[in-house]
């Protein structure tokens, strides 16, 4: 690789790309060409830096200048000022990274300070389309180490001792799973990577594939060596085209470099990987459905046991892990199981990646040691709630999870404490909610998702969740009764017990969890026909303040439902039965006399 004096790293992650970072990348190439800096300055498209809320992000090295909210119209200035003349463009610097005129190192910025990046170690650091950059940061060194210095048994022993648990949701001990797959009888075995990631709001796995695909490839090869498999599959959604493209490039490069295929690194170990595209059904993330889908059938779950480790793809023993689980493996091999086990809590070792979204200032991709509290995540890393609103809860675990209310904000997050609170780690979606979020509405949102995604194979899930949704709709529209709440709870427990797969078994969780912590909100909807958060449209009342109303009649003229009546110069009134809550009158009233009431 030729030496450049400056590197411009443009974030090519999902968040920044939707903010136009691809245009920024092109603009850099063009400007650098026009200023004749092509041989001195290299432009690189990386994976997500994590701070997606401040995107599009550009970092210029060696100064380490962290530019945020860059527009393509800013590029010329960065090239002319910074790259040509060495003057950092202060107005574009991420506000927190500038202190007393000095650029702080990224690790010093509040957003990164409490983070520890193991699975995301290379995201935003390397060019994911260049295998040599991965190798530069010790890539494939762990594979080399296991192939030449370790027996498969030793590898499995290390993974066991590290305490790593599956990051795909369930948290099953990874080493144990590897051992089961290794010990299962048979010559043909498979290694599968679950990159389906269908939870609403989650994009951790996709970001790892986009930002550091080789770490997953290397780990799968290590797994292949450990369990005695020659063939791996990555199951990834077709809707993630960037992840698929980066993975394809990476697999091809690894083959070219002899890191996949026959005689890897001069040994007699052989391993290769193929990509399988999923159509984007949530249930296909469930392991048995996923394997059925890879086999070319409709992705429907089947009962377990037999577990995949014994009878998986095409009936052969199959090791199936999540993207993030794999991304941890090379580091464990290089730094040792004790090092990994020293991070995190008693029973949850290492770190966890979360997609922090919702009502929080710094939305983005974060990685924290297990045991970090909700408060640290929301306040320190997330920078608090926007608009001075009050923090209400975080939802974790997606449609299989539940919420942690503000009163339990100091709970350290790990697999078991979340389960104890009635929620789940899940794959790592973390949705922050403020006082304006209605918890009944949230439960309804996740149930709508489940009803849409249920494969329909078993009645408790197909029919039961729909019944639950109907009840929630009844409650949020103000027609619920106290018996409905009871029925909802009853249904929830019976679905949990009788559904065939994890989708149905966990679908009631958001309802149970919100009932547990926010029962009073359900009751307010039922008894007082009131939504305390002011979010449920049907329960809102649009009212005219008699003191402010001047009786001009403008509202009545604009109301599409003819719900407003009155006499000119006297206060007007809204017929709540007719009002469709469109809000038009609020906008039209010149005297601000109309408002929403919860």
């Amino acid at each position, binding site marked *: 690789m030729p030496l450049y*004096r400056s590197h411009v790293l443009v974030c090519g992650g999902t968040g920044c790309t939707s903010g136009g970072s691809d245009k920024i990348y092109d603009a850099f190439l063009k400007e650098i060409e026009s200023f004749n800096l092509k041989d001195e300055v290299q432009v690189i498209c990386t994976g997500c830096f994590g701070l997606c809320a401040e995107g599009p992000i550009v970092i210029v090295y060696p100064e380490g200048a962290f530019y945020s909210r860059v527009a393509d119209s800013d590029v010329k200035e960065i090239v002319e000022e910074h790259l040509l*003349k060495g003057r950092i463009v202060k107005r574009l610097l991420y506000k927190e990274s500038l202190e007393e005129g000095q650029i702080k190192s990224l690790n010093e910025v509040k957003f990164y300070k409490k983070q520890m990046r193991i699975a995301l170690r290379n995201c935003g650091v390397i060019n994911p389309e260049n295998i040599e950059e991965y190798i530069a940061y010790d890539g494939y060194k762990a594979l080399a180490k296991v192939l030449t210095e370790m027996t498969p048994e030793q590898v499995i022993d290390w993974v066991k001792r590290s305490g790593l648990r599956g990051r795909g949701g369930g948290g099953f001990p990874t080493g144990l799973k590897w051992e089961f797959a290794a010990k299962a009888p048979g010559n043909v075995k498979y290694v599968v990577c679950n990159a389906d990631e269908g939870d609403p709001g989650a994009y951790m796995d996709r970001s790892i594939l986009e930002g550091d695909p080789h770490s997953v490839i290397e780990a799968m090869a290590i797994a292949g060596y450990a369990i005695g498999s020659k063939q791996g599959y990555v199951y990834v959604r077709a809707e993630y085209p960037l992840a698929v493209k980066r993975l394809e490039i990476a697999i091809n490069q690894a083959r070219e470099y002899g890191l996949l295929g026959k005689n890897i690194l001069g040994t007699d170990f052989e391993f290769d990987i193929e990509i399988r595209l999923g159509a984007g059904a949530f249930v296909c993330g469930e392991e048995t459905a996923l394997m059925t889908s890879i086999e070319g059938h409709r992705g429907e779950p089947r009962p377990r046991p037999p577990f995949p480790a014994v009878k998986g793809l095409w009936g052969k023993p199959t090791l199936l892990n999540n993207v993030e689980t794999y991304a941890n493996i090379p580091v464990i091999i290089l730094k040792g199981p004790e090092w990994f086990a020293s991070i995190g809590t008693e029973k949850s070792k290492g770190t966890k990646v979360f997609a922090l979204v919702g009502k929080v200032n710094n939305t983005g991709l974060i990685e924290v040691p297990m045991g970090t509290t909700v408060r640290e995540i929301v306040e320190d890393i997330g920078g608090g709630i926007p608009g001075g609103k009050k923090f209400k809860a975080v939802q974790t675990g997606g449609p299989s999870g539940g919420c942690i209310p503000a009163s339990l904000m100091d709970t350290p997050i790990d697999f078991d404490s979340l389960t104890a609170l009635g929620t789940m780690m899940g794959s790592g979606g973390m949705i922050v909610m403020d006082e304006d979020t209605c918890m009944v509405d949230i439960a309804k949102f996740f149930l709508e998702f489940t009803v849409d995604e249920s494969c329909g194979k078993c009645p408790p899930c197909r029919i039961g969740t729909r019944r639950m949704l109907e009840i929630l709709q009844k409650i949020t529209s103000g027609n619920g009764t106290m018996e409905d709440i009871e029925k909802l709870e009853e249904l929830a427990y019976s679905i949990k017990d009788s559904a065939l797969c994890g989708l149905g078994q966990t679908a009631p969780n958001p309802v149970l969890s919100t009932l547990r912590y926010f029962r009073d909100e359900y009751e307010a909807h039922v008894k007082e026909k009131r939504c305390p958060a002011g979010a449920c449209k049907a329960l809102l009342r649009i009212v005219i303040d008699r003191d402010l109303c001047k009786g001009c009649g403008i509202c009545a003229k604009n109301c599409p439902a003819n719900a407003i009546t009155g006499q000119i110069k006297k206060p007007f009134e809204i017929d709540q039965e007719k009002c469709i809550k469109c809000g038009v009158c609020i906008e039209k009233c010149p005297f601000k006399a109309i408002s929403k009431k919860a």
Partner: protein
Amino acid sequence: MIKSIQELEQIRKKALEELEFRKQQGEGIRVVVGMATCGIAAGARPVMLKFVEEIQKRNLQNVTVVQTGCIGLCKYEPIVEVYEPNKEKVTYVKMTPEKVSRVVAEHIVNGKPVYEYTIGYEEAKEANK
């Protein structure tokens, strides 16, 4: 095709050199070249490029070349400041690509600043005129 661990290690070393300066600045030596308008007019670009070239040629780790704006001493441009951890910074003035080779060899590699090229030396010369 990488056929052995040794080959992998070679690729790693080479690629790392290229990426080394993406690590946050800190321990290493920093060569700061004044590249404001007057610096460029006085010939700072070839000076900077020469530094990059010499550092690459000698395979020096932990040395970064950065640019800066106006230092405020336009008549002494091109100006180059060398920062070493825990040492006084050294300011070189009226730099040329030819002078760069000596600064790299004597100062950056061997730790002995080239005093004839420094600001103090120039100022003394002016005063004696």
